[in-house]
């Protein structure tokens, strides 16, 4: 599974705490991404998805970015310990980001054409407006020539997200991090945007990290999936394996929570309890408090990542089949 030749991004042991002795908001986060692949990071609100993205982009506040631990390597270069200038060149160039809120992520004072062309010009110099027009046409903005001169407030949400995508892709990045790019959009627009990102990915052979909590989206686009819980990656595998053979009790719970479209109406399945607050994290497994399979060892020892081929699970009881049998 891991072709070292096409390896684009590798994250090893990423950790982050808000203060010297404070709890870890991110702990031992590991994942890899190859060119042309889509990695979906899923998990409920507050599990550290966005923090992971911001750490990768180097967009954390300076006081926080000093506390980032671990190895982040992108195209064979470390993303940490880079001087600001170099990081700045990388941002928007090889490495770029699409934000969650298209309504507020564009500068209201500038025409969209100017904003896209600026993104090009700060990496390449001249020729931004021609390039911006071309990108707007590529992302499917009708009548792009006159739309160039529109202000963001004159566009709909879906249009703005297309503009954001044009801006993120204007410099041919090899990795795009999309932080819930479709959450603010309605379902039809959402599928158009996902299709657009998919098409652009094929043309550019870029890697995409898609942060989402929508398992429907994951099923549509993911090559690989990383499930996060309370600042840790609890399971990391191919999309197929995650949906057909989930190993971590949390992943199983997540998939079971998606209401089925057909069949009789029943009460929705939920995972009891809530995400623990960072201050109350114990030494053991972070999911132990909500886990139906938890035993004594789960309370005391942090589970190590267990590997079966390219399927990573952070659970003492993996593979879970044995557990289900003994429970039954």
């Amino acid at each position, binding site marked *: 599974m891991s072709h070292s030749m096409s390896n684009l991004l590798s994250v090893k042991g990423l950790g982050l705490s808000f203060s010297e002795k404070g709890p870890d908001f991110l702990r031992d986060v590991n994942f890899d991404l190859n*060119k042309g692949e889509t990695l979906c990071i899923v998990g409920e609100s507050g599990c550290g998805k966005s923090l992971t993205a911001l750490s990768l*982009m180097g*967009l954390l506040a300076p006081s926080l970015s000093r506390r980032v631990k671990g190895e982040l390597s992108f195209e064979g270069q470390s993303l940490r310990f880079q001087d600001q200038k170099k990081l*700045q*060149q*990388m*941002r*928007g*160039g090889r490495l*770029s*980001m699409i*934000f*969650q*809120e298209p309504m*507020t*992520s*564009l*500068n*209201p*004072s*500038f*025409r969209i054409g*100017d904003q896209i062309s*600026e*993104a090009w010009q*700060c*990496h390449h110099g001249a*020729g931004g*407006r*021609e*390039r911006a*027009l*071309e*990108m707007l046409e*590529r992302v499917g903005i009708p009548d792009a*020539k*006159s739309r*160039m*001169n529109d*202000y963001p*407030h004159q566009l709909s949400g879906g249009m703005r997200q297309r503009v*954001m995508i044009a*801006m*993120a892709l204007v410099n*041919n990045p*090899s990795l795009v991090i999309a932080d819930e790019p479709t959450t603010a959009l309605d379902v039809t627009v959402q599928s158009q945007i996902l299709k657009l990102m998919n098409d652009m990915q094929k*043309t*550019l*052979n*870029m890697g995409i990290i898609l942060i989402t909590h929508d398992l429907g989206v994951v099923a549509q686009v993911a090559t690989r999936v990383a499930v996060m819980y309370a600042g840790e990656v609890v399971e990391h595998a191919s999309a197929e394996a995650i949906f057909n053979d989930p190993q971590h009790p949390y992943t199983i719970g997540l998939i079971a929570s998606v209401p089925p479209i057909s069949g009789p109406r029943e009460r929705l399945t939920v995972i009891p309890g809530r995400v623990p607050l960072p201050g109350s994290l114990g030494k053991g497994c972070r999911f132990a408090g909500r886990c139906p399979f938890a035993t004594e060892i789960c309370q005391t020892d942090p589970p190590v990542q267990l590997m079966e081929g390219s399927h990573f699970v952070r659970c003492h009881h993996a593979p879970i089949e044995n557990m289900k049998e003994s429970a039954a």
Partner: protein
Amino acid sequence: MTNIPTTDTAVADTVLDRPSESRAWRKFRSHSIGKAGAFMVAFFVILAVLAPVLPLQDPVATDWGAVRKSPSFAHWLGTDEIGRDLLSRMIWGARASLLAGVVSVAIAVILGVPLGILAGYFGGWTDAVISRCTEALLAMPFLILAIALAAFLGPSLTNAMLAIGIAAMPVFIRITRGQVLTVAAEDYVESARAVGLSTPKILRRYVLPNVLPPILVQATLTVATAIIAEASLSFLGLGQQPPSPSWGSMLNTAKNFLSQAPWMALWPGIAIFIVVLGFNLLGDGLRDALDPRSD
């Protein structure tokens, strides 16, 4: 990896250029109150600029045969206590008053806005130092501070403008800082960083334009205040020095002859009123026109 082929730049046509008439200008032109303000201000500006070429009498020449004459054909606005033509003095005085208003506000904006941006964007120690100094200045009443500074610098129009500019600066630091705090937290600033823009460029292109509208409105309103402040300083003898005219110093002299020659006080009073009103209306018009979110 495949690069997206770039289009042939030769075929780039005029549509790629920005539209020549800006939206803000179009909106301002249909804003009748703002236009009225602009006309009032423009009227005095044109008079002040044309002062040297208008067929006016010498504003400092005295005529002992025509002391404190009421308005007549020889002297349209009358004469003052040593027989100087008031029309001529009003128009030459407009130069001092308008200059004082605009220059002192320019000083306040040029010093205040960058300090406010630094304080708001970088926070921490930078913010603490700038904000405490601003608060110390704000603790003193505007006019008292201007009078103290002008007295300290010595009486002249230039020093009066400097004094008013420095006294008006804290308001601009305050407003800018507050605006920057909101704007810097906006998603588009973060997305600008994600695109790879440098901090100076983000400040110039993303922060400054979005904090500018309220500052511009404040600036036009402050021009009005500054004109009154200059009049006050000149009234106290700290601004324009005699015999050169300014509306404030003319009022100062006129107060001694209110019962014998009320027109001496009337004209500068009306002029100050109209210019101040004009700048206020202009400020309102600009606010509406510059807001990119309103249509």
